[in-house]
C-alpha cells in the first residue's frame, strides 16, 4: 500500500539516478568518511521521498534535495558535539587573499609556456578532494554549497541561516585556504612551477 503515486516515483527514481554520485561525493567531502557519507545520503533521500509530494516546483528538486542533505549534516553534527567547535587557527590567522594564480603567474616562469595550465592539468583529483576536506567546517560548507553545487549567496545564507555578508567572507576565506592548500600540495608533489619546497607563502 503506497500513498505516493507512480509518476512521482518515476520522477524520483530518475532524479536520484541523475544526482546520486553528486550527493554521495558531496556527503563524502562534508563527513570525510564513507560510512557517514552513506548514512547521510540515505537519510536525505528517505526524507526527500517522504516530503516529495510537498515539493511544488519539480525544477527545484536538485537544490531542494541538496539543502536537505546540508541540513541533515548540520543537525547530525550538532547532536554529536554538544559544544561548538573551537575557532580553528586557520580561521584567525594567515592572509585572507592567497591566490594560486598570482603564485603561478610569475614573469620568470612564463617563458616556459603556460604554467597555469600545467598546474591545472597536473593537480590530481585526490589533491583537490583532500584540499576541500582540510577546510575548517564553516568554510567547507560554504565552498561546497557555492562551488560544488552552484547555489547563490542568498540561497546559501538562507540554508545556513547566516547573513549574506558572512557567506561572502567565509567564501573568500575558504577559497583562499583552498588555493593555499593546493599550492602546498603541488609543491610537495613537485608539480608547482616555482614552488619546489612546498612553501605555502
Amino acid at each position, binding site marked *: 500500500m503506497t500513498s505516493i503515486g507512480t509518476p512521482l516515483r518515476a520522477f524520483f527514481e530518475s532524479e536520484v539516478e541523475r544526482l546520486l554520485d553528486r550527493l554521495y561525493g558531496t556527503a563524502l567531502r562534508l563527513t570525510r568518511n564513507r560510512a557517514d557519507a552513506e548514512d547521510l545520503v*540515505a537519510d536525505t533521500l528517505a526524507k526527500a521521498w517522504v516530503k516529495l509530494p510537498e515539493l511544488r516546483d519539480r525544477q527545484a528538486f536538485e537544490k531542494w534535495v541538496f539543502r536537505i542533505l546540508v541540513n541533515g549534516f548540520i543537525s547530525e553534527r550538532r547532536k554529536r558535539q554538544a559544544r561548538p567547535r573551537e575557532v580553528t587557527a586557520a580561521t584567525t590567522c594567515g592572509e585572507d587573499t592567497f591566490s594560486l594564480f598570482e603564485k603561478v603567474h610569475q614573469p620568470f616562469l612564463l617563458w616556459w609556456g603556460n604554467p597555469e595550465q600545467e598546474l591545472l592539468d597536473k*593537480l590530481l583529483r585526490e589533491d583537490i578532494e583532500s584540499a576541500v576536506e582540510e577546510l575548517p567546517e564553516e568554510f567547507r560548507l560554504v565552498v*561546497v554549497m557555492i562551488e*560544488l553545487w552552484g547555489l547563490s549567496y542568498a540561497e546559501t545564507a538562507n540554508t545556513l541561516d547566516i547573513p549574506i555578508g558572512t557567506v561572502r567572507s567565509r567564501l573568500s576565506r575558504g577559497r583562499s585556504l*583552498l588555493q593555499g592548500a593546493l599550492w602546498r600540495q603541488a609543491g610537495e608533489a613537485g608539480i608547482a612551477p616555482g614552488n619546489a619546497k612546498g612553501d605555502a607563502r
Partner: protein
Amino acid sequence: MTQDLRCEEVIEKLLEYLDRELDTETEHALARHMETCRACFTRAEFERKLRARVSEAGKAKAPESLRRRVRTIIEHY
C-alpha cells in the same frame, strides 16, 4: 554610461563575477574590461578552470550498498 574599471577593481570583483553575483551593470563592465585586457582575461580563465576542477570533487561513485539502501527506501515508504 559607466566608467572604465581598473585591473585591481576587476580582480577584486572577479570571483563574484564568476559566481554571477554582481549587479548587471558591474557584470557588463567586467565583461567589457576583459574583452580588451589580456591579463584579467587570463586570470578569469584560470579561476574558471580551477573551479571546474574543484567541482569534480563533489562527485564520487556511489557504492552498491548505498544504491541498495536507496531502492529499499523507495520500496518501503
